[in-house]
C-alpha cells in the first residue's frame, strides 16, 4: 500500500483571544491520491478550520496547532517561509466559499492566475497568461480570451467560481481543498460546479477534500465522508455505508433532517438543541446533550472510536454495544 496523500493524526486547533476556543479536538484521517473525502458538519464544527490547517492559513499569532499533519510526505506544521509558500498553491490549493471575497477585486482574472503560475513555476508573464487561458478553457468559461481581462465583479457567481477553480488548479496541485465551494451559488449552478469539480479531479488525478454542510452535496462528490461535530470526527465511512447504515446518532439525525423522502405537510425532523461553545476541550461525548438515545455514561466519559467494519469509524458507546455479540 502506497503512502497516503494526506495523513492527519490527532489534530488539535485552539484559538486564543478574548476567550479560548477549542475548534478542533483530535481529528485523524487519511486521504489517498485521487480520492475524495467529504467533510460534513454544521457551522462551527471545525471542518473549515481542519481544511485551512492543511494550508496553514489560520492566523499564526493566535492559533495553537497540535498533532501531526503530513501532505505528500511533508510535515506541514514544520513548514516556514518560502517552503510554506511553495506548498500553498503548489502541492495543495484551495477553493473558497465565496469567490467574490477570495479574488482580488482590482486584478483581472487572467493576472491573478498568471501570478500563481509565475510564482510557482518561474514562468514568464506570457507563459502565465497562456496557462491562464488554458485553465479558463478547461473550466469551460465561455469566450475565455475575453474573460482573461475581466475583473471579478464583471462575472456571474458561477463564472467566478469557475475562475476560482481555474486559479486553484493552475499549478497542478496534488491536493485540492474545497471549502463549501457551492454554498454561495444558485442551486442550478451548484450542480454544474460539482460535476465540473468531480470531472477535473479525475482528469488531474488529484486528491480532494470537500467541506460542506449539505449532505446531498457531500454524497454527490465524495468517495468517503467524515462527519464532524464539535471539532471531532464522529463517524467516517464510504458514502454508501454512511447513507445506508449510519451508526452515530448525529449522522442519523442529519439524514433524517433531509428533505428527500419527507412527507409533505409533516414537520422536518430537525436535531433539537445547538452545538456546544467549545470553550473547554470535550471531556465527554459532545453530542450527548442533544442525543435522543443517550445512556448513562455519555455525560462523563469520551466515547471510544469503534471500527464496525473496514474503513469505518464511529465515536459512540452505542455502536460499541451493538458490536458486542448477544
Amino acid at each position: 500500500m502506497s503512502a497516503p496523500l494526506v495523513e492527519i493524526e490527532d489534530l488539535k486547533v485552539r484559538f486564543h483571544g478574548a476567550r479560548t476556543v477549542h475548534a478542533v479536538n483530535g481529528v485523524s484521517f487519511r486521504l489517498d491520491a485521487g480520492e475524495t473525502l467529504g467533510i460534513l458538519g454544521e457551522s462551527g464544527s471545525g471542518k473549515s478550520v481542519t481544511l485551512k490547517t492543511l494550508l496553514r492559513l489560520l492566523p499564526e499569532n493566535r492559533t495553537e496547532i497540535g498533532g501531526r499533519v503530513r501532505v505528500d510526505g511533508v510535515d506541514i506544521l514544520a513548514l516556514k517561509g518560502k517552503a510554506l509558500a511553495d506548498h500553498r498553491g503548489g502541492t495543495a490549493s484551495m477553493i473558497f466559499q465565496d469567490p467574490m471575497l477570495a479574488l482580488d477585486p482590482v486584478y483581472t482574472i487572467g493576472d491573478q492566475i498568471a501570478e500563481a503560475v509565475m510564482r510557482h513555476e518561474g514562468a514568464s508573464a506570457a507563459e502565465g497568461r497562456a496557462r491562464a487561458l488554458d485553465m479558463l478553457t478547461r473550466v469551460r468559461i465561455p469566450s475565455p480570451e475575453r474573460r482573461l481581462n475581466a475583473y471579478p465583479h464583471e462575472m456571474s457567481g458561477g463564472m467566478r467560481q469557475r475562475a476560482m477553480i481555474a486559479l486553484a488548479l493552475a499549478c497542478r496541485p496534488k491536493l485540492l481543498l474545497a471549502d463549501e465551494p457551492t454554498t454561495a451559488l444558485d442551486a442550478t449552478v451548484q450542480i454544474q460546479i460539482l460535476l465540473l469539480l468531480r470531472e477535473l479531479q479525475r482528469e488531474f488525478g488529484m486528491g480532494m477534500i470537500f467541506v460542506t454542510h449539505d449532505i446531498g452535496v457531500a454524497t454527490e462528490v465524495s468517495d468517503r465522508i467524515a462527519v464532524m461535530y464539535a471539532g471531532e470526527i464522529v463517524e467516517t465511512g464510504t458514502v454508501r455505508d454512511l447513507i445506508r447504515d449510519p451508526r452515530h446518532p448525529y449522522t442519523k439525525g442529519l439524514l433524517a433532517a433531509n428533505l428527500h423522502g419527507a412527507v409533505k405537510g409533516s414537520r422536518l425532523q430537525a436535531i433539537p438543541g445547538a452545538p456546544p461553545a467549545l470553550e473547554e476541550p470535550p471531556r465527554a461525548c459532545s453530542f450527548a446533550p442533544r442525543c435522543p438515545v443517550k445512556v448513562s455514561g455519555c455525560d462523563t466519559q469520551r466515547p471510544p472510536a469503534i471500527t464496525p467494519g473496514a474503513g469505518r469509524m464511529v465515536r459512540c458507546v452505542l455502536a460499541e454495544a451493538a458490536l458486542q455479540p448477544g
Partner: protein
Amino acid sequence: MLTYIAKRLIYTLPVALGVSIVCFMLVHIAPGDPLTSVLPPDASAQLQAEMRKIYGFDRPLIVQYGLWALKTLQGDLGVSIATGRPVAAELGKALGNTLMLAVLATFIGFVLGCLFGFVAGYFQNSWLDKLASFVSIIGVSVPHYWLGMVLVIIFSVQLNWLPATGAGPGGSADWAWDWVHVKHLILPAVTMSVIPMGIVARTVRALVADILSQEFITGQRAKGLLDGGVFRHVVKNAAPTALAVMGLQLGYLLGGSILIETVFSWPGTGFLLGQAIFQRDLPLLQGTILVLAMFFVALNLVVDVIQSMLDPRVQRA
C-alpha cells in the same frame, strides 16, 4: 475612458458656474464700501460717485456679475485696486509659488504618510503602530503656523542653516531652481507637509488594516504568494483611496496656506489673499478666490479620473 472624462468635464461646468457666483457674491455681500480703501476719508460725494461709476459698482449686482464673468472667461480678472496692476499677472506669479510649495508639501506628506500608514497597518497594535499613530495625530493636531515658528527658531535663528522668510535672497520674488532658492522652500514645505502627512497616514493605516483583514488576502497567501507579492495586492487596493485623499489635501493646501505663507512671507496665493482681504482689494480678492476654487474643482476632476483608472469597480460608462 475618454467618454468618462468628457462626461466628468460636463458635470464640472455647473459646479464651476456655482463656484463663480459664490465667489462673486461673497465679496459683495461683505459689509463696507469697496472704495474706502482707495479714496481719502474726506473725498467729496461727487468723487465717490464718479469712482463708483468707473469701477462699475453703481450697476445692479447681476449686471456686475455678468460683466465680470465675461471678462474672466477672456482671462481678464480686472485691475487690483491697491496696486493698479492686472490681477491675472499678480495671481499668476503667486500661483506658481504656491503650487510649488503645495506640491512639494503634499509629496513629502504623502510619502511619509504612506510609510507610517503602511507600517502601522501592517503591524497593528504593535509599538511601531502606536509610534506611527502618535506621529500622525501630532501631525494633524499641532497648529502649523506655530510649528513653522518653532522650525524657524531652531533652523534659522539657532542653527542658521536655512533662511527664515521669503522665496529668494534679498526678498526677491523671482524663483530659480538653484540651492539658494530651494533653501527658502524647505522650511515652509516641511511645515506644510505635516497635516497631509497625518491625514494620509491615518487613512492608509485604516485602509491597510481593512484590506489585510479581507479574505482575498488569505486567497493570495493560499495561492502561494510571498509577502512581497501580497504587498503588491495591498498597495493596488489601497492606491485609489490614498490618491484621492492626497488630491484633496493638495487642494486644501493650495487655498488654505494663508497662515504658513504669512509666517514665512512666502509670496504665494495665501499671502496675496491675506493682503487682498486687509486692503479690501475686491478684484484681487475675487480673482484669487475664484482661481483657487477652480483649482480645487479641477483637482477633484483629476482625482476622479485617476481613481477610475486605478479601480476597475468605478463605473466608467
